């Protein structure tokens, strides 16, 4: 059974037109191929296309300057608030006790103490933390149900009488009167409100000396301003006002349109 298969290429080569007679060397070749293993021999071949840039920065710079990442403080080292303990890309380490993330995930201390690298399975099963222990003999994490250990980081200071607010206020109120020039005109220009005796200026949120809002709100009352009383259900006044407003709006619109250059062509006539 096997023999005819092996001889098949021989047969084909023999079956070529009679006009062409293959040389005896080729016949031997075909025989060798037919008898050998069917798998092709592995061949290493490189194709070098002219369009592909192989050198330079074409494929992304693989070897830039180092970013100096890694631990800046080792375990047990003393740190003060603000010290960076670890620099990293991403979050290999998480801030634990008395630590925080910086804006680039670097970890810095918020208390002075001793650096600890640890895991806290109660917080998270897989994360590794960096913390700052307040005392040298403390281990992190602190026990789960114990009271937190905290530092006051403050000192009691006697309130100095110089910061008496009443004294300040008077001085500041005087300052606002004359705007520094000392000329009579400047004093005349200042509004009467500012020269008031009972004026009390306090420091607000914006570090500026100002009156309280409720005091400003009573300015009209002090000036004796009379406002026409609102009469609910007075349709006559309401109508007059609203019509006046509408007129004013129309006028304003007209002026606005007049000043505007008409860049847009006018709309075409509508078809009949």
């Amino acid at each position, binding site marked *: 059974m096997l023999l005819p298969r092996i001889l098949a290429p021989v047969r084909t080569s023999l079956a070529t037109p009679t006009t062409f007679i293959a040389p005896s060397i080729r016949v031997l070749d075909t025989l060798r191929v037919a008898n050998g293993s069917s798998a092709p021999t592995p061949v290493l071949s490189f194709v070098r296309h002219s369009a592909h840039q192989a050198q330079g920065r074409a494929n992304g710079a693989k070897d830039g300057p180092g970013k100096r990442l890694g631990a800046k403080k080792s375990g047990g080292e003393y740190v*003060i608030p603000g010290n960076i303990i670890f620099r990293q890309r991403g979050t290999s380490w998480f801030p634990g006790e008395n630590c925080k993330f910086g804006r680039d995930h670097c970890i810095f201390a918020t208390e002075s103490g001793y650096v600890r690298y640890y895991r806290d399975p109660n917080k998270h099963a897989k994360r590794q933390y960096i913390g700052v222990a307040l005392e040298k003999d403390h281990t992190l994490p602190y026990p789960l149900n114990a009271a937190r250990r905290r530092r*006051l*980081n*403050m000192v*009691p*200071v006697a*309130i100095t009488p110089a910061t008496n607010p009443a004294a300040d206020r008077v001085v500041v109120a005087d300052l606002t009167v004359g705007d520094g020039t000392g000329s009579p005109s400047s004093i005349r220009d200042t509004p009467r409100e500012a020269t008031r005796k009972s004026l009390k200026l306090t420091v607000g949120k914006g570090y500026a000396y100002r009156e309280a809002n409720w005091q400003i709100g009573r300015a009209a009352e002090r000036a004796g301003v009379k406002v026409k009383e609102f009469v609910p259900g007075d349709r006559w006044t309401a109508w007059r006002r609203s019509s006046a407003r509408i007129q004013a709006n129309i006028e304003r619109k007209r002026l606005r349109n007049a000043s505007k250059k008409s860049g847009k062509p006018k709309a075409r006539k509508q078809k009949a």
Partner: protein
Amino acid sequence: MASTPSIRQFTACIRCVRQIPTANGRRRLLSTSAVAREELQTQAANATPPAPPSNPPEGAAQNASAHQVPEYMQKWGTLDPQMVENKKQERRLLRREHVQPVGSRRRRAALRRSALQKAVEVPFEQLPYQCFQEARKFLLEDRQEKIKEIETQQLRIKNLMEQDPQLSGGLAAKETRLRSMRKHLNKLIILADINDPVVKRKFEDGQGDMNKPIYRYLADQKWRKYKRLVLDQRITQMSVIPDLLPSLDLTADIDLGFGRKEVAPGDFVDSAISEKMPRLNVQTFTPGEKLVTVVVVDADVPVPEKDSFTYRCHLIASNISISPTQTSIPLQRIAHEDQKAVDPAAKKIALPWIAPWAHKGAPYHRLAIFVFEQNEGRMLDVVKLGKTKRSVFNLRSFADSNKLSAITATLFRTKWDDSMAGVMERAGLKNRINVEFKRKKVEPLPYKRRTERMR
């Protein structure tokens, strides 16, 4: 409309299961504000059960107090909580009769219309809708089934209790079995009533009787859905829980207020307001009376010498009895009664209130309020408690030594404000007013020169 005959049957059934004190008047649960609730309680004695809307009532409460109310209030006419329709009337109802309106305004308006038109009032159970009636029939059947189950369960429990412990596999095994059977019985009692539309309606109107297990259950579920979550979060986020006690499972609702002002858990309270004692409302969801101890602790007292914090006790009040229907703990009033009491052992306030105070510039103080259940309802010795030291107060050891178990807690915060100087002066701390806390300067680490070796 209000009470079906079936419900009456069932209350009788529950009474034979467990001894519960009888209902005292009507109250609004959880659905109303605490202030109104308290007012209601004071008024509960002469309150009438809600009258059906068909006959607009001449309230007995109104008649009884008619001679007290001023003339201009009498001009307002009859105000029925079932039928007040607009805001003005609702306000007047609350002002004159100290009663909250019932249900939605839409429903009250509908009731009023139908009363005005003299429409025939159809009781709720007899509403002529076929589907409704079919559903009711189905629910009633289910209820009967549950009641039968309850009866068999009771019988089983009775039999087991009479059984010899040797037969039922030892005393401990018997106890466990009894406990699980009672648990199942309680579950059945809830299940029998949970689908009743009348029960649901009464609960939503705030007219449920907290002596009954079903209303307690509903109130508990409602509390757990939102209020408890918030309270739990505040307590843990502000670290009251590991700082003052190792752990706490909240089992009772608590409302805190100063005078008329409600305080949410964790709010900053003005020092002038917190100079007086707070009032508490503690709603328990388990049956029976409890004796409780209220402790107020400041968890952030600065100790500059040791550069740390300590605790200070602001109040200990003991032997206060609360129950699901008796929720109010008006500490101010308790203090007044204490002043009248002659026997020092009969007093309730062991350590009187001192106003919370904070230095200028110091970090905020957390004032935690704990409600402890006393062990087996035993009275505590107030005279002995009164000898507790306020400063460096350790709540853990206090609770352990007096065998107290916390049922709930809340907190408020205090910091320096404009009125603090006056408060401290009145509290006898005048020498500390002029002390301000400032941040300590952090010394930088010594600069290390980069040497040849370091490179």
